[in-house]
């Protein structure tokens, strides 16, 4: 039996397949943005081929299919979201745009107002009003809903978000609108705030719901198509979709909760980074993943995965718990362009996989980072994507010449170098933001560099940011996919349970916990994954009366007793003290939410040692010129075949190691050793 994880990025689709014995294969194919499913299936095909099986045979032996998808993230970053309407309580359609009147940069006024995913002319109001108690002041006027439907029809709206005031207290109005929409606009993706985020706070709830609606249709189309194809080839289980909270959800649940799949692939980077950092004996790692479209960076300090509910992606506020990953538009496909004032920019727009960089010869005329790397000799024109694409260096040079070199009045090679330098600085800034800016010294971290495009930039990045140790996993090109194999099934449940501790009804509390647990355990069992050990973790969000933020306190299993409730109160005081340096024994306490996290532990494949070094000569490939500014331009550069390098090899720069889906560039002042698992360790050579 096999397990497979597939991460579909904007440019490449990466797969890792593991058999029961832990033997691992990495496959990589181009993503197919016009229809991402094709790339996904091509990836399965390739895995089957590696295992010498037919696709149907392979799928019948596949016990677990994990999937990270960039569909929703890409949609938000590029603005290619569904045409989205919003229905609100009368008088409140602008909640989304008022943004609580806040901006994060107080002294920088030069900030473009964020795009409205539901533009004002598609935000319609209906007569209805629920009071803070949950009582109805004004019943829903359905005629208003029908009128909105007509306007949405006329405008060709594909998704509708519904967010009413106090819907977390009284969801019926939103539910009724959802019913009407289902009947009248059956094609539309409908998202209601009481389902997406049943919590107080109209702006945060509305924004999260609108994002869910805007990215829902692209995700739904995709998953429908994918499941259809998988079923046709005999795969009977549901693929599990990587979620931004670090767990996975079955596809059928994932599309309804589209917002949970934002940063899906990148979230899997964290388990991957921790896995590799452990081989160097540390749990402090900065993980960077440079793919075709985006650059994701996350910092793990001493094993602690940071989650946040304060996230915004492309200025769109999301109030769900997510792993804290910072993303910018910088990747191999990022387009280089010169503005009217003669300033060179790289990104945030990407040529993606189609048409892709100019060198793909698929009609892309814009120069990209990949084109620059090709011109600089860092990547092999025969070798891109493991030979799946033959690159046209002349086309790359021409695009850089026309759109960068000419406007700037410099040579093509200088222009290519400038493109690489600009993108390196953009990425270094992003690394500083999560490290230096948050008070962490990069010197104390390992930089784990992944993604198809990352290893070509790793050394320059490390130098720019000041990280002494760089690890490039042998499987860097399928980093997130690998990380997914180290995640667990996860179902989290939160239910609001407002009560003062002194008025707590134990039977009600026990009933709630038991109900949530039953539901969670049943769902995980129904998902029918073999050898899953189910764990249940309970907690409660508590606070002192008058506070509006909560502290999460672990709760014991089983029927809670009065004595245990007293212990919970003690635990809350203690945790409040630990976190905030004080507690307040005189204050009344409240329980706000009850949480149940149901985890289905999946078996993790072990890392396998690499064969020992067989001497560098065996791995030597024909040298070629590559550009190093420190050496004044192009120099004849040694090329090694990564597949033939064994553990313990030492390569000094300038040199390039070619793997099937990536190139490790070792500049003149760097050296690279191959560790016992075949991973590459880059370090600066002290002069």
């Amino acid at each position, binding site marked *: 039996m096999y397990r497979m994880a597939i991460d579909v990025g904007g440019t490449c689709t990466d797969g890792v397949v593991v058999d029961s014995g832990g033997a691992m294969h990495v496959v990589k194919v181009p993503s197919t943005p016009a229809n991402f499913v094709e790339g996904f299936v091509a990836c399965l095909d390739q895995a089957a081929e590696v295992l010498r099986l037919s696709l149907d045979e392979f799928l019948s032996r596949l016990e677990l299919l994990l999937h990270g998808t960039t569909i929703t993230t890409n949609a938000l970053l590029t603005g290619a979201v569904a045409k989205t309407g919003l229905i609100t309580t009368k*008088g*409140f*359609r*602008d*909640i989304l*745009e*008022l*943004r*609580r*009147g*806040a*901006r*994060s*940069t*107080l*002294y*920088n*006024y*030069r*900030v*473009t*107002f964020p795009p409205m995913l539901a*533009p*004002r*002319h598609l935000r319609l109001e209906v007569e209805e009003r629920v*009071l*803070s108690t949950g009582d109805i002041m004004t019943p829903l006027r359905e005629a208003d809903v029908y009128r909105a439907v007509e306007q949405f029809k006329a405008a060709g709206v594909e998704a509708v978000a519904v967010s009413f*005031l*106090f819907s977390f207290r009284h969801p019926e109005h939103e539910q009724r609108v959802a019913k009407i929409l289902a009947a009248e606009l059956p094609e539309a993706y409908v998202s209601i705030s009481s389902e997406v985020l049943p919590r*107080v*706070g*109209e*702006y945060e709830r509305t924004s999260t719901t609108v994002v869910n609606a805007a990215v829902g249709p692209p995700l739904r189309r995709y998953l429908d198509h994918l499941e259809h194809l998988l079923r046709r080839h005999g795969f009977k289980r549901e693929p599990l979709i990587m979620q931004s909270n670090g767990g996975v959800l079955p596809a059928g649940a994932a599309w309804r909760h589209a917002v949970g799949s934002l940063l899906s692939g990148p979230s899997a980077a964290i388990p991957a980074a921790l896995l590799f950092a452990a081989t160097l004996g540390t749990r402090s790692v900065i993980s960077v993943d440079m793919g075709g479209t985006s650059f994701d960076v996350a910092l793990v300090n001493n094993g602690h995965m940071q989650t946040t509910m304060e996230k915004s992606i492309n200025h769109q506020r999301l109030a769900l718990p997510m792993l804290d990953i910072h993303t910018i538009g910088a990747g191999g496909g990022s387009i280089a362009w010169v503005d009217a004032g003669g300033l060179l920019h790289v990104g945030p727009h990407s040529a993606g996989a189609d048409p892709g960089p100019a060198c793909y010869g698929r009609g892309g005329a814009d120069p990209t980072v990949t084109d620059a790397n090709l011109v600089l000799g860092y990547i092999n024109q025969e070798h891109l994507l493991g030979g799946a694409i033959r690159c046209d260096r002349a086309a790359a040079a021409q695009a850089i010449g026309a759109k960068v070199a000419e406007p700037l009045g410099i040579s093509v090679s200088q222009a290519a170098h400038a493109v690489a330098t600009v993108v390196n600085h953009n990425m270094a800034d992003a690394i500083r933001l999560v490290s*230096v*800016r*948050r*008070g962490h*010294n990069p010197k104390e971290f390992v930089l784990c560099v992944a993604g198809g495009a990352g290893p070509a930039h790793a050394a320059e990045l490390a130098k720019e940011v*000041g990280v002494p140790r760089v690890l490039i996993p042998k499987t860097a090109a399928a980093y997130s996919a690998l990380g997914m194999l180290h995640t667990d099934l996860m179902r989290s449940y939160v239910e609001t349970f407002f009560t003062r501790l002194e008025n707590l009804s134990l039977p009600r509390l026990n009933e709630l916990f038991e109900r949530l647990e039953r539901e969670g355990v049943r769902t995980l069992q129904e998902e029918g994954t073999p050898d899953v050990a189910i764990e249940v973790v309970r907690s409660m969000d508590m606070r*002192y*009366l*008058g*506070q*509006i*933020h909560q502290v999460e306190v672990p709760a014991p299993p089983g029927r809670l007793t009065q004595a245990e409730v007293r212990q919970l109160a003690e635990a809350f005081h203690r945790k*409040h003290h630990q976190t*905030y*340096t*004080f507690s*307040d024994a005189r*204050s009344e306490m409240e329980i706000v939410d009850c949480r149940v996290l149901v985890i289905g532990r999946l078996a993790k494949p072990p890392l396998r040692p690499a064969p020992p070094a067989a001497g560098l000569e065996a791995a030597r490939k024909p040298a070629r010129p590559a550009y190093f500014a420190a050496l004044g331009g192009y120099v004849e550069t040694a090329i090694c075949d990564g597949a033939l390098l064994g553990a313990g090899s030492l390569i000094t720069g300038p040199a390039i190691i070619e793997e099937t889906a990536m190139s490790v560039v070792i500049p003149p002042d760097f050296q690279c050793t191959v560790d016992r698992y075949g991973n590459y360790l880059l370090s600066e050579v002290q002069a």
Partner: protein
Amino acid sequence: MTGETPRVDPLSVAVIQNRLLSITEEMGVVLLRTTRSQILNECHDFSTAIFNQHGELLAQAEDVPIHVAGNHFMARAILKSFSAEEIAAGDIYLMNDPYSHNAGAHLQDWTFFRPVFHEGKPVFWVMCRAHQMDEGGSMPMGFNPLAYDIIAEGLRIPPIKLHEKDQPIRSVVDLILQNVRFPAELRADLLAFAGCLKLGEQRLHEVIEKYGYPLLAASVDAAMESSEKAMRAEIARIPNGVYEDEVYADHDGATDQTVRVRCRITVEDESMCVDFTGSEAQRRFINSPLPNTYAGAFIGIFTSVTPDIIHNEGCYRPVTIVAPEGSVVNPVYPATTGCCTLVLGCHIIDVVMKTLGQAIPRQVSAGWASHFTINLSGRRPESGELYANVNFCGNGGSGAIWGYDGWPHIAPVNCSGGIIKASIEMLEMRNPWQVREYALRTDSAGAGTYRGGLGVSLRFVNHGYDSHFILLGDDHSAAPPFGQDGGKPATRSRCWIERGDERLPVRTKQHYVVQPGDHIVTETTGGGGVGDPLARPAALVREDVVNGYVSVERARSDYGVALDTATLALDEAATARLRGRERAGEAHGRGEEKSA
């Protein structure tokens, strides 16, 4: 002890500077997450900072700007009030009084300090400053335009010790709690302020431990020098010269007379002098004590230069500020100051931006909407307990800046988006008020190549008993938010009470008693525009009309863009004619156009 200064490298300086910044941010998280008072835990009306033993600012979180750029006055007030022998580890100091060594601005803002000791000496101070829902005085929440003197505005606290040896001084705390209207909330919040400072102290000890004090001290000095250098380089880019301008506030709440703030900026190479001579003699209620005046001036400057400079003491050094004693920008005892941040705070920033705009019109923002903040208090119907609410939901839009449209609803400029407006749901859960409308206000912004951000329309309904209402801010009846570099000014803000069929106009800075069922309605102005409105692409103007930001009529009169009233289709020929005529009019002297 060698006495040698350790060599600092640029990376350590950056890492340490950023570590201190992140400590101030973490201190802010403690306040936000543990306080009980709504203006703190929801609206974020507080600030945190770290100073060295000389009272020099080392780091401050990006909190409410009008606090932040004047906090060094308070740090120095302690040093003036206490001798070295009196200061001990585990102390907490408290102050709010503008007339005790400039230890405050308005009495609502309380500032707390804790020394951080190393080898027996205080080497750092951690600070938090927070707006209190009430600080005693003649009216709830401390806003009384007619207060006889500052004694009548609330409890005056010179720099005093609140804690000794990590224990609250009971008699002091009891005295304070006996003199405020929300003692239970304040009792709990005092724990939060102490907790925030304690966390700051712990973190600084960790930093001292990690880097050693000598390297740390040398690094923060280097960081201040670096900010000073960067600030000087920015000033050097402003053309040398003397620039003068003035602005007016609607009134001071006690009379109907406008209030003039005058400013003369002299730029000489790498330094700058901001002189407020010519501003009016002190009035009532709106007077701005020095810390507030400094903060206002620096907000105007900081936002007009690169945002990349870290705001430590170094950036203050190249700028001299002159504020004549006894004037509205530097009042003397016993002048009242209750509304200093909300009113004059904004006008001081305005006048600095307007004046700097003469020198660098494409770097400076157009005028923002002033405060238009609804303050409510009364008795809860269910319990009879006193409640108070400041929600900031009525605030208008920001001015545009060259290259960028203004943002809606992030005014006032003295907060610049740092105050988070209340959630309507939280507001209704906590107070006997209901909100019926909270929307963008069409045509409220100034036109320009870059348009101002829109103001809002707001409607509150009283679901409780008779309640007190005071509208804090400025309705721009003296002058709308100004345009910059050919951009147009915005409009005025308005407020009224609806009682049955009656419509009672509301004046800013005056107390009203609202009855059960009364509606309070506000309509705020947006910000001013930047650049010639005729140069705004017609397609963008059309989009503004489609979304209801700009009306068809104003698209025509302000932007010279003709749209079909029914379909909103762009009439290119008519637009070209309109714009051509406007431009020709400009070329032949604007006087005629204006009178037309």
